[in-house]
């Protein structure tokens, strides 16, 4: 059974990438919707299996680590696989209606979408340093291809900037992998971590971890390496922006977090942990501030992503040389933050796409009067905003609450200030959009009405983000599950 689920999870996105490559956009849409169904069922099945029996390692090709590539299927990984299934199906569904099927180059949207999905699954499950690199490149190149789709000069400019940043980040990561392999002779993260628990830390191994985390931070757009993100996320088609903000940046963060939690204690040090936390805080403040000042609607949402990503990096100081319980609280808070931001930001970008489609302009001040005409999309935007502002009962609130407790209990009270300021500033940029849309415009009501299903999708995502706070206990309980008996699945 597990074999089938694993094969299905790894196989369907790749197979559907090939299938959709051979069809045109309209037929590709039908094929994709079928594939989404399969993928959601398989992800759910794997999640239920892990929730029942606990996690396991899965050796690909029948070879175990260190010779072969092992996948680590644990509670956290399957939770993210399921999250990806939810967000990606919403974006795929939205894109099928939103994207113009008559442009011939849009047929390439589907294969890139499926390759992106397969890369994400590879990263969530990966436990092999080099395999994670290939997974990251799979994600980066398909994301760049999606941003560049259409080939307009401004889109190319954004995608080139994105590509160069992503490539530099990958190289830094790969250099770290090279040093790690030279030092430990294995590529398995679990193998390195277990060796380190039994032996003293060898000299010269800190640089490898630092290089890897720096490269991944660049790919996650941590302040001050964030400049590539807003143009790329702002210029892409809305379903693509939603995928990029909700999932793609999380992939590189996820690897950095995994590395830190497994290897940070022996290889890291207090100064770098605090420094990363400080950069994250700067991202929260600076990103939110810039989000308040943008003139384009999608740029507001993109800068808000820079800010929300900043919170994630509080993981580093809050899990370094603190007690077991504080570390667990911080990890749970960050996981909830990842999930709630993924849902809320996908909802926000999709709703923003509807608003732009309706008013025919991407400027914030063009939204005047849209509140009367498109209240449903605007409401979804606001609900997603509630989660970003971290008001109860949203998932964002539960996440910040856990982070607040972790900061206070570890005596690092200064992060509390960041949480408060960030919440206030996010309220400022969300209300700014609302103010603009409630103004009455003197001009006539020339609004285009998008299809009803386009409006339903962001609403579902926003409601999920809002409801996450109510079921956070259940979600977190799956993540904390212990591994099965060591070794064989």
């Amino acid at each position: 059974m597990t074999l089938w689920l694993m094969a299905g999870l790894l196989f369907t996105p790749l197979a559907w990438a090939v299938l959709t490559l051979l069809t045109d956009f309209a037929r590709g849409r039908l094929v994709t919707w079928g594939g989404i169904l399969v993928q959601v069922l398989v992800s759910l099945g794997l999640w239920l299996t892990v929730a029942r029996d606990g996690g396991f390692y899965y050796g690909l090709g029948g070879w175990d680590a260190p010779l072969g590539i092992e996948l680590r299927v644990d509670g956290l990984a399957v939770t993210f696989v399921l999250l990806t299934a939810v967000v990606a199906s919403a974006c795929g569904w939205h894109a099928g209606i939103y994207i113009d099927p008559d442009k011939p180059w849009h047929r390439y949207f589907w294969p890139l979408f499926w390759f992106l999905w397969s890369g994400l699954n590879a990263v969530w499950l990966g436990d092999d340093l080099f395999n994670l690199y290939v997974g990251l490149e799979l994600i980066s190149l398909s994301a760049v291809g999606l941003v560049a789709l259409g080939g307009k000069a401004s889109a190319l400019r954004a995608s080139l900037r994105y590509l160069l940043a992503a490539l530099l980040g990958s190289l830094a990561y790969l250099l770290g992998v090279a040093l790690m392999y030279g030092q430990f002779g294995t590529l398995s993260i679990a193998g390195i971590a277990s060796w380190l628990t039994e032996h003293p830390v060898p000299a010269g191994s800190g640089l490898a971890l630092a290089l890897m985390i720096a490269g991944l931070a660049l790919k996650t757009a941590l302040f001050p390496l964030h400049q590539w993100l807003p143009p790329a996320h702002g210029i892409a088609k809305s379903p693509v922006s939603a995928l990029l903000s909700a999932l793609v940046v999380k992939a590189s963060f996820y690897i950095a977090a995994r590395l830190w939690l497994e290897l940070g204690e022996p290889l890291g040090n207090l100064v770098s942990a605090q420094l990363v936390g400080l950069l994250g805080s700067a991202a929260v403040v600076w990103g939110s501030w810039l989000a308040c000042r943008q003139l384009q609607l999608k740029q507001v949402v993109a800068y808000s992503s820079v800010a929300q990503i900043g919170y994630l990096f509080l993981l580093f100081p809050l899990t370094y040389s603190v007690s077991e319980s504080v570390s667990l609280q911080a990890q749970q808070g960050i996981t909830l933050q990842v999930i709630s931001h993924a849902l809320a930001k996908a909802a926000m970008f999709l709703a923003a796409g509807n608003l732009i489609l309706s008013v025919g302009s991407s400027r914030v001040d063009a939204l005047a009067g849209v509140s009367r005409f498109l209240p449903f999309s605007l409401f979804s935007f606001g609900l997603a905003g509630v989660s970003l502002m971290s008001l109860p009962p949203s998932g964002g609130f539960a996440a910040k609450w856990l982070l607040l407790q972790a900061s206070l209990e570890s005596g690092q009270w200064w992060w509390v200030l960041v949480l408060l300021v960030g919440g206030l500033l996010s309220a400022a940029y969300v209300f700014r959009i609302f103010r603009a849309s409630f103004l009455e415009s003197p001009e006539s009501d020339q609004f285009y009405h998008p299809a009803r299903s386009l409006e339903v999708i962001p609403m579902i995502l926003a409601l999920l983000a809002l409801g996450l706070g109510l079921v956070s206990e259940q979600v977190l309980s799956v993540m904390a599950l212990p591994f099965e008996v060591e070794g064989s699945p």
Partner: protein
Amino acid sequence: MTAPLLYALVGAMLCGIGLFGLLRLSHLLRKLLAFNIMGSGVFLVMVGLPQHQGGQDPVPQALVLTGIVVAIAATALAIVLIRRYYHLSGMTSLEGETTSREGGPE
């Protein structure tokens, strides 16, 4: 000092040179070349370091082969994007409009 260790150290130098190029140069093709130099440096470190003491090791050789294919794919895609970008905007760098009259590739 063995030959593989020398490769690794030269790789470190190439990484530094490539990094300088990526940060300092503004012409997109030069940036891409700098990326490739840095990539070669990383591959040299990857293949040199483990073979310094362990003798011949096929695993990093295979990894580097995979890495090269990935780097080629990225480079080729970047060239396609750069050429189209140059064709549409007449610019060869990502910096502001002012640098647009530097002239393009032959």
